[in-house]
């Protein structure tokens, strides 16, 4: 085993170890905790950077540990894995900074940051998983690590939300488990392989394989919030803002979407899935979820709930891109994994800032807030426009490729879905912006915390600004060699063009 093999494992450990240490820290060791957190996040970031560079130069990062007879735990850094792991490592760093500011002086911080790190560990594992059982392992770990974050406040409401979350995710995990075991007993293989590993399966297995596909997608669809499995997501909004941000942008929702990409591309393979006839229904389901989520978002007055339904809608772009079964749409779907993450985390950070600084939770309370907190609302505006799909922000790129891909494969109905959803996005985001920038200031805010001459604490302000800049940058600089789009093209090429 060469030294390269250890890198993926180290990436996982870089958040696991600080997490475990943080659990044992007493509440008042604030500095040590912050240091550990930032250190872990930085190490992970650097390691991921190393892997990016290495994979670009043709190195192979893979570690295999025995788990069961004939079944191994595999961590491998392929292009797809790197896309997701880079996203999560960058956003973890940013979110850590944000969470430190957000949770200042609140109780049980050791517990919070411990589970926070575990959550990132699980996400990293999901990203780097080289076969379905490793994926399953980290996927379930993610469920377990996020539950304490959702119920962190400990109120009755939080407990109920946690219950709902578990009801969905544990059932989903069970479906995923059946699908995985079944697949294994049918094929004896679970390794993620470009173009899938099922091409040799005979016709007589098709019914079983279709069932397995449904089981796997249903299991993953819970986290990816595919209709009708999305019910937990709006309720989980009870969690502290950094958790919502992480949950929506990187961890839970994305793990589900990422899993769908893995299953379609690297377990079944696009061609084989198309032959099974399972992709079109999936595309329809995704399309329906896009419209449904947007419509529900329209009617929410609670800002975080509106963002939550927006997530339901936006994540399904990824599924849609995968299910269209064409190379260009695939680029759109895969790249949206990153784009949506960056934009949505900005929006959640901003929502958190409003709640933390001015006690604003509802959209109806947001009159004139742009003048009170211009930087925050500027970041929010970028995120919102990105979601709508306005060029040159990230969201536009995704939608462009999705639409192009759909035309390319002759599924022009997708264009209407995209247009409709963009329209709905505009309908539910623009009034917010209008309120924030153009409505008169109210006489007083629900709460007003004073941060001197700044609009809010710098640890709260910096993260959304950074991510907003990212959202702009990935839209503007799409042609640079390491841009998400380039990676997405690489991934799509592997799936569609290479022999």
């Amino acid at each position, binding site marked *: 085993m060469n030294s390269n093999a250890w890198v993926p494992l180290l990436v996982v450990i870089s958040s696991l170890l600080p997490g475990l240490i943080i*659990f044992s820290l007493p509440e008042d060791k604030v500095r040590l905790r912050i240091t550990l957190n930032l250190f872990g996040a930085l190490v992970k970031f650097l390691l991921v950077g190393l892997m990016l560079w290495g994979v670009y130069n043709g190195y192979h990062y893979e570690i295999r*540990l*025995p*788990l*069961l*007879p004939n079944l191994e*735990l595999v961590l491998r850094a392929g292009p797809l894995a790197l896309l997701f792991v880079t996203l999560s490592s960058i956003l973890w760093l940013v979110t850590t900074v944000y969470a430190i500011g957000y949770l200042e002086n609140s*109780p049980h911080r050791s*517990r919070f940051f411990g589970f926070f790190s575990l959550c990132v560990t699980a996400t990293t594992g999901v990203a780097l998983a080289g076969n379905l*059982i490793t994926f*399953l*392992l980290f996927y*379930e*770990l993610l*469920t*377990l690590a996020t*539950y*304490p974050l959702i*119920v*962190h*406040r*400990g*109120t009755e409401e*939080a*407990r109920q939300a*946690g*219950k709902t979350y*578990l009801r969905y995710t*544990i*059932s989903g*995990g*069970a479906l995923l*488990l*059946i699908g995985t*075991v*079944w697949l*294994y*007993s049918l094929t004896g293989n679970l390794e993620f392989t470009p173009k899938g590993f099922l091409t040799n399966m005979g016709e007589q297995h098709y019914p079983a394989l279709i069932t397995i596909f449904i089981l796997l997608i249903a299991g993953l669809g819970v986290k990816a919030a595919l209709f009708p499995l999305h019910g937990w997501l709006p309720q989980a909004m009870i969690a502290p803002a950094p958790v919502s941000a992480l949950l929506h942008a990187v961890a839970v929702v994305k793990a589900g979407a990422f899993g769908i990409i893995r299953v379609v591309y690297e377990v079944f393979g696009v061609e084989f899935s198309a032959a099974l006839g399972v992709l079109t229904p999936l595309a329809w389901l995704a399309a329906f979820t896009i419209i449904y989520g947007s419509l529900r978002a329209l009617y929410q007055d609670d800002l975080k709930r509106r963002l939550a339904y927006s997530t339901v809608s936006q994540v399904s772009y990824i599924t849609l891109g995968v299910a269209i079964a064409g190379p260009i749409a695939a680029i759109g779907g895969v790249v949206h994994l990153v784009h949506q993450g960056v934009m949505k985390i900005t929006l959640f950070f901003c929502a958190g800032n409003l709640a933390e600084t001015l006690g604003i939770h509802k959209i109806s309370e947001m009159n004139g807030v742009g003048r009170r907190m211009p930087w925050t609302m500027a970041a929010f505006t970028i995120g919102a426009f990105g979601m709508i799909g306005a060029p040159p922000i990230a969201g536009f790129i995704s939608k462009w490729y999705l639409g192009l891909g759909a035309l390319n494969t002759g599924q022009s109905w997708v264009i209407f879905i995209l247009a409709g959803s963009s329209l709905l996005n505009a309908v539910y985001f623009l009034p917010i912006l209008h309120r924030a920038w153009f409505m008169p200031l109210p006489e007083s805010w629900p709460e007003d915390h004073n941060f001197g001459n700044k609009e809010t604490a710098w640890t709260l302000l910096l993260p959304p600004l950074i991510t907003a800049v990212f959202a702009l940058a990935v839209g503007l600089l799409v042609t640079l060699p390491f841009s998400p789009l380039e990676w997405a093209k690489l991934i799509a090429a592997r799936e569609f063009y290479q022999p």
Partner: protein
Amino acid sequence: MAIENALMAFPMASIWAVTLVLLPLAGVICCFLLPRISRTLGLFTSFANLISVSGLGWQLLEHGSYRHAVGGWGAPLGIELYADGLSLLMLATTAMVGFAISVYSTAYFKPAVGVRFWPIWLCLLTALNTLFLSADIFNLYVTLELMGLSAVALTALTGSKEALNGAMRYLLASLLASLSYLLGVVLLYHSFGSVDISLLTQQMQAPSATLAAATPAVWAALGLMGAGLMLKTAIFPLHFWLPPAHGSAPAPVSALLSALVIKASFYILLRLWFTLFEPLVDGEAINSLLGLLGCAAILWGSVQAIRQTRLKLLIAYSTVAQIGYLFLVFPLASNMGSVAWNAIAYLIISHALAKSAMFLCAGNLLRFGGHDRIADLDRVVQRLPLTAAAFALAGVSIMGIPPSGGFIGKWLLLETAIIQGRWDLVAVIIIGGLLAAVYIFKVIGYTFSPAQITHEAHNVSARMQWSALLLAIGAVLLGFLSLPVLSLLNISDATITSGVGL
């Protein structure tokens, strides 16, 4: 000189095996004679026991399965000790769980109760060790009685009304079961003139005897021994005695009972079923019946666990449910093989670790808050993070969520069930896991409530918290150790095994 010769003449394994028998016995007597230092003696004995098991395991890995003719006579005249992979795993589980519980007990029991606890617990350890090392069905009867009586005595230790009632019910069930088993032994002895398992198996499986072997007497023995052992294992619907006994005993005792004692009778059932009774039951409806009971136990036990309002009863009913998984081995292993075996072995070990951790946690909570009402736990758990963590980790294994030993067991079980097309069993396994999640999270949900502590909290020593946590961590880490564990399981003796890798 003579000693050196003797050492040359017999294998190291003998030393370890005999130590496993004599050491806890000597411990019993020393505790009885010197009650003042019984705590030290008990702890030392269980530690030495751990070392002896490691020694035996090392020898078995080197030389394969092992037989020891007690008295030098050999079967059928004398009794033989026998150790293969399965017995080694059971011994090792006993030693590990037993040691952790011993450490816990040093802090849990006040000296006045401890003086009574230690010798009886060492009796139980003797019983378990001799049981797992025995290859003789009459000897197994004696060890079963030794185990049953010490378990009852431990249950009654607190002397409370519930504990005495629970112990009495347990004692009667246990005695009934033993007699039923013994009558089976009688019939087998008078059918074949031997009580050694391997000799009986040979006679049962001899090609000429296969038809003749299935006499009414052998069938009656199968029924009697099976029923007795099932009653002792508390498989649904014979589980009536388990919740009151396990729910009312002191925490370390509940842990011992749930983790080890019921597994011991299951172990005998497993042995007999797949060796000497195999020609009778192979592919028979009786295996389906046992599987059906297992399914019923999973569902019934889980639902009952969800309905409980007291933590210890919840855990006890969870045991009822988990026993059900073990019985799925009968329909699954009868057709094909070793995967089901591996699954059951794994479930036994991980359940032993996880369930003992859970009961120890319950003991901590009880000590801390003076009650185990689940809905009021929020006043307790905030202050015992280690215990809460231990409970959660153990819960992960019980639910069969990765990464944990319980997950590996469940995976293997699902794999066999799917390969054999037993979708009914697949459904039950999955539903059982979901129900387990319901009752585990019913408890965990309360650990995050920020309620103020309103009562006089009692201090829980670090030893009690850490022993629970280490057991739970063990249950989780087991999820990564399947290769070494399963390789231990494969130590076997070709002469008495029927094709299933026992």
